[in-house]
Structures are given as structure tokens and as C-alpha cells.
């Protein structure tokens, strides 16, 4: 059975970004920054998912890396740390995805 594509994994990362943003935006002073940051990174994840890499099947190693990174993000319950992870998660996920190239 074929594994997920990079694009499908990046879609999961976008959902994780949304969850982090929801937590981060509870810091009222940072509402705009959090949403601008979410947009900037989900645009980038969408761009990679829609590109040539998005259709490629991920190796089991990359599937595990991205799934664990998303799981790590889900462990964050502090809104300040969520804002840090809003920026960190896509960097980690893209590093894993780009290693396929």
C-alpha cells in the first residue's frame, strides 16, 4: 500500500498550525501577529504542497518525522510557547519534506 504524499502530510501540518494559532491568539496583544504568522507559514506549506514535491510519496522515515513533529506541537499548551511553535513547526516539517529532494 502506498504511503501518504508530501502534500497530504503538509496539509496535516497546516491543521496543526491552525491549532497553535488558536492557542497563541489568546494572548490578546499578539492576535494580529499570530494570525499574520499563521497565514505566512500556511501559504508556504500550501505552496510546497501544490508544487512538484507535493505529489511525491513520502518515505516511511519522512512520514514518521512529520507526524512526530505535529505530535510535538500538539503537546504545547502554553500560548507563549504556541507562538514560538507556530514558527518552529513549519521549519521542522519543511526540513523533513525537503530531504526527499
Amino acid at each position, binding site marked *: 500500500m502506498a504511503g501518504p504524499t508530501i502534500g497530504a502530510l503538509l496539509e496535516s501540518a497546516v491543521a496543526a498550525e491552525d491549532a497553535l494559532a488558536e492557542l497563541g491568539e489568546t494572548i490578546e496583544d499578539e492576535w494580529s501577529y499570530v494570525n499574520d504568522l499563521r497565514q505566512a507559514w500556511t501559504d508556504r506549506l500550501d505552496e510546497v504542497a501544490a508544487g512538484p514535491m507535493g505529489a511525491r510519496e513520502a518515505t516511511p522515515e*519522512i512520514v514518521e518525522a512529520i507526524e512526530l513533529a505535529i505530535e510535538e506541537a500538539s503537546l504545547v499548551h502554553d500560548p507563549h510557547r504556541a507562538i514560538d511553535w507556530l514558527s518552529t513547526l513549519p*521549519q521542522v516539517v519543511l*526540513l523533513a519534506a525537503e530531504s526527499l529532494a
Partner: protein
Amino acid sequence: MRFQDAARDGRAVVYAAIQADPLVARAAELLSQATLGERILARAVMNGESTDSHRWRRIFPSVFSSASAERAVDILAVSLAVADRGEQVRSQVRGAIVEELTARLLARRASPASIRRERRILFDGVPAEIHPYDVTVEVAGAGEAFDCKWGARGINADVLHQLDDARTHALDEEEPLKVAIVVFDAERSCRVRLDAQTAPHAQTRLVALEQLDTLAGPRQ
């Protein structure tokens, strides 16, 4: 324009102890040689919740299968040691690491004696800023001032005003002073933060995670 040590107030004494922590020097030395992937690893682990090294190795397969895997193991260990500190100390240690990393990269192209920490910059007839600059390069006619941040969120109006004020006051005294903000975070995140700032920053150089090694290159 002249440089001066910052006042040794309570904050400075506490922070000096953080800066002197051997963990800070060890992390900065490793990160000064690191690849971008290894720096992202350090950022994730020092920001993270998990302290299981095996788990982090599975999140970064390409980093741990590269030619520099041995260094990546050391970076993971030092990052976990930072993450293991309490939240407040972790935050202070991370900040100190970015400062020390900046100083070490600058030392590849500037005389170590010219690189100073926690310095104020004084100008004739201008009240001194309360907060010192994290790192300065003190060379006559080619001074530089750096503010260092762990994350893009640390970029704020106060920091941008202070850097730009120093630059413009230096110009008034016909002393060219380059100013920069060094951020251990992705350029994309820093640009989002900067775009929302109204404080002057057009002449303030951004050195984000992807560009850290340029600190070791020619003065910009």
C-alpha cells in the same frame, strides 16, 4: 560617540551569571559551526516539550544521517540540557546563547578585543539609553551594534527605535555605525513581525536564522 559598560544593577548581575553558564558557551560554540538543519533542531528542542532524545532524532532524520551527525548529537544533548531548565531560566539561557553565538561569529572577522557585550553607546548632548546593546564591535570609524533575540516575537518598537536612534546619532557625529538585529528564528517569521512595526527599521539589518553565518563575513 563612545562606548561604555552598562551599569551593574541587579538585572545585570543576575544576567551575567546566566551568560557565564558553561552550557551557554558550549551551545554557542556548537551552533557557530552548525548547519541550518542543526540550528532548526536546536530551536525546536529548546522550544519543545519532549525531552526524549530518541524522539527528536526521529523528527530530524536528515540531520542525524548527514556527514555532521556527530555534531548533531552534541547539539541535541546541549539543547535538551537547556530545555530541562525551568521556563524562566530556559528563556534567559536561550537569549544568552544567541548573544554568545553572535559574538563568536563576529570574532571570525573582527578582533576579539573589539567585540564587547552589554555596552551602552553615548552621544554628546543625548541622554543615554537605559538598556545596553547586547553585542558591539568597537572599531573607530566602523562601529557596529547588535541586538539579539531568540524569536521573531522579540522584535518590537523599543528595540527598533533604540537601534535606529543610535545609528542616526552616530551619523550626526559623522561616525558611521551599522546596526542589526540578530534573531534565532526563520526570516519569514521575522519579516511578518517587522512588517507590522511602524518604528524606523529601513537601515537596520536583519540577520535571521538562515543568515547567521553572514555575521562572520564582511561588515554589512
